[in-house]
């Protein structure tokens, strides 16, 4: 109980101490967007006859006619009130867009991470049990193969093979087959919503839809996870307490799993947190390829047309998630490693 309390207190401190970073991200993105040479007013005043006047109207609408410090102040005040502005591109409030799209991204990323972990950890363990063996090299090669193909290529190839040629996979047009009726949205995660609604057909449809993009992403992150598992497993297997465990005659399973693996899992948690955060931001390409209505592709589109609000909102969201994931990792770490609380 004391440990949990200490862990929570530490997490709280961590959160508070990461607020300046969030603020930095906020301001930095704001400035970065203004540095972009594109003028959203011009771009969006794109009607066949839009002239200078229309441009001015949009500029005023976006508040871009004010001096930069004022804009920043207004923006910060808005953010403080939970208003992330409006997207010119979709015409919606950014907060609403992000809220609708975030579950899609999260669902995809979490599934991918799960797939990656489920395959990477055993692979890493197996490799670490026989370092230098053929098996070890094989695992390394396999993992590295995954990480060296750009996701957009592996994505398009998977589509080509599994959808176009074989027809196993459903059409790569988003989260759910268009003809499936959606479950009432409770969490935004389709897999969960379908379960809650008790619609198993829908669930399997959504799962099928999720498979290809999730695999595409998972392939890319298996390598770092397996690598860290192998490395920390090696360290853990080589450490003194394993020798102790052997010296008192514990069973193989207990030594490898309870003693070695549980200790080795700690760095894996940290890396998994980092991987998760980067995946969430970096799956632009996968989302594009699979028409996945996630936040990253949303931000990309907005970026190309200099639509400030969505990009700013997205970056802020990602930074917040980054902080939260770090907190979770901390908490997990605190639970998994009693030493963490003293540090």
């Amino acid at each position, binding site marked *: 109980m004391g440990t949990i309390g200490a862990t929570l207190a530490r997490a709280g401190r961590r959160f508070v101490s990461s607020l300046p970073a969030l603020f930095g991200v906020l301001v930095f993105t704001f400035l970065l967007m203004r540095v972009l040479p594109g003028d959203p007013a011009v771009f969006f005043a794109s009607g066949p006859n839009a002239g200078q006047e229309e441009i001015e109207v949009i500029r005023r609408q976006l508040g871009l006619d004010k001096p930069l410090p004022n804009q920043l102040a207004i923006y910060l005040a808005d953010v403080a009130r939970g208003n992330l502005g409006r997207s010119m591109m979709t015409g919606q409030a950014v907060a609403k867009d992000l809220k609708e799209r975030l579950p899609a991204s999260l669902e995809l990323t979490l599934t991918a991470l799960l797939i990656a972990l489920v395959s990477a950890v055993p692979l890493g363990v197996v490799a670490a049990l026989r370092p230098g063996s053929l098996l070890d090299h094989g695992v390394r090669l396999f993992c590295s193969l995954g990480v060296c193909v750009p996701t957009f290529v592996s994505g398009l190839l998977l589509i080509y093979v599994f959808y176009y040629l074989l027809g196993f996979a459903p059409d790569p047009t988003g989260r759910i087959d268009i003809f499936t009726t959606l479950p009432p949205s409770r969490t935004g995660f389709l897999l969960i919503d379908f379960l809650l609604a008790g619609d198993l057909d829908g669930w399997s449809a959504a799962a099928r839809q999720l498979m290809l993009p999730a695999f595409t992403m998972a392939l890319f992150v298996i390598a770092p996870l397996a690598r860290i598992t192998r490395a920390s497993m090696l360290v853990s297997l080589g*450490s*003194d*307490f394993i*020798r*102790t*465990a*052997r*010296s*008192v*005659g*514990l*069973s193989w399973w*207990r030594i490898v799993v*309870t*003693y070695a693996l*549980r*200790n080795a899992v*700690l760095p894996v948690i940290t890396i998994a947190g980092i991987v998760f955060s980067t995946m969430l931001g970096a799956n632009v390409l996968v989302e594009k390829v699979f028409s996945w209505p996630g936040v990253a592709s949303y931000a990309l589109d907005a970026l190309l047309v200099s639509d400030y609000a969505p990009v700013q909102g997205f970056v802020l969201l990602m930074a917040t998630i980054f902080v939260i994931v770090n907190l979770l990792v901390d908490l997990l770490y605190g639970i*998994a*490693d*009693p*030493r963490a609380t*003293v540090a």
Partner: protein
Amino acid sequence: MLGASGDAHMTAPLLELENLKVTFSTRRGFVEAVRGVSLSLKPGEMLGLVGESGSGKSVTGFAITHLLDKAGRITDGRIRFKGQDITRAGSADLRSLHGAAMAMIFQNPRAALNPIRTIGQQIADAILAHRRLSRREAQAEALQLLRAVQIRDPERRMSAYPHELSGGMCQRVMIAIAISCSPQLLIADEPTTGLDVTTQKVVMDLLAHIAAERGMATILITHDLGLAARYCARVVVMEQGRLVEEAAPLTLFHRPQHPYTKRLVAASPTASSRIEDLVPDGERIPLVDVAELPPPPHGTPLLLDVKAIGKRFDDGTVGVADFSMTMRGGESVGLVGESGSGKSTTSRMICRLIDPSDGEILFDGQSIGQIPARDFHRSALRKDIQIVFQDPNDSLNPRYTAFDCIAHPLLRLLNMRGGDRLRQRVEECADRVGLPRELLPRFPHQLSGGQKARVGIARAIACKPRLLVLDEPTAALDVSVQAVVLQLLNRLRREDNLAFLFVSHDLNVVRMMCDRTIVLRTGVIVEQGESRALFANPQTDYTRELVDAVPHIAAPAELLPA
């Protein structure tokens, strides 16, 4: 304790080693670590296995318990346990053997425990590996064991993690795990190195007590002759993978037969030994002046005047408080105290590597405490205060050759350029510390511990300092190497009229090396005075404890029948 072996010749041996050979395959080919060891151990007997580092003690222990590294193989010989040949035991046999029949206790207890499992669980794991009990029963038994190893507050410790315990407590837990399934054989591999002097004694007493109580045969592996002498009925000496001598401790220490044993015995400092005695005559470094160092005449100006310095770290811990001392040129002062008492902090402050938070340091009448440590490297006095570090392994830059290391202060502090003069000077230093010139182009990882220590000393004396701070310069060295190094230091001091600030936790060494001694505890001076007098008649309990805890071979007069 000695009684166990009294009528033991009747009983069959518990363990027999017959010409045991262990080979490691490394990339430089095969290394024979144990080259034919034969010994036998009776039930309940406590056997000491001593020898220098690398002599094959641990490997022998691991071979017996079949815990050798993957690279190591028993190539020859036979291990018989209770009459059964277990040399090539299969993994199933081994599992029932491990823990239940033989158990091992390791050096560095904290690392030997699983950091993320509670003490209770770990002991229970060991119990459950051999007995069909429920977890609850196992836990109850674990608690019993914790009581048996006399841990304070055993109920609470059950759910503690290793990092929440002190080193001594961890070692007790380790002992509890080892005895959990009442093995007949216990192998304790340097169970007390890394522990505080005072804790060392308590743990060893406990181990001996438990072994005797439960009738466990014990092999105590150690490089500390004093320790072996104190607890074992029989001691075997190992050198380069071979047993060279076997005898009862007293015989061994007072009438060693084998030259190696002789050297080893001589090198172990005792309550009465002098530096000159540590090294056998042949290897003794001739001294300029063999007589006792006369205390520096009273007129000599103060070399060092430390006035009430203190150190408070950023996190609020007070490392040292209100520390004052003076030193004259050529004087040697010892600084002792338990671990964490502030010895290193003090020596670094005096050496101007860290800034004191308050107080004043005068060197040769000049105030140096005011110069920030950041800028002290530019001070002209930098070359006058040098330091030798504890661990020779990490005191040399892995990317510098021995030559570079010694040349470094010459280049930086004496502004010497490369070329012949530098080479000459470096070689001169090497000669003075007895470092063969052909070792100069080597990198640290190509040198032995003693050689590294010499490089470190050569570096420190290269630019002829006036004050040398020695922070446990021999703590990581073997006794025989330590003897040589101590002697070397002593000679250098006389030759150059160096002043020493000698930090150590080995009181015997401090007594030999230092004119005066300061005893530190939690950053505060508890006692100081002339070394001999201080150790002969400690004024505070703390000092007395420190003195008592040092294991030594009792003087012949006390123990040997006339």
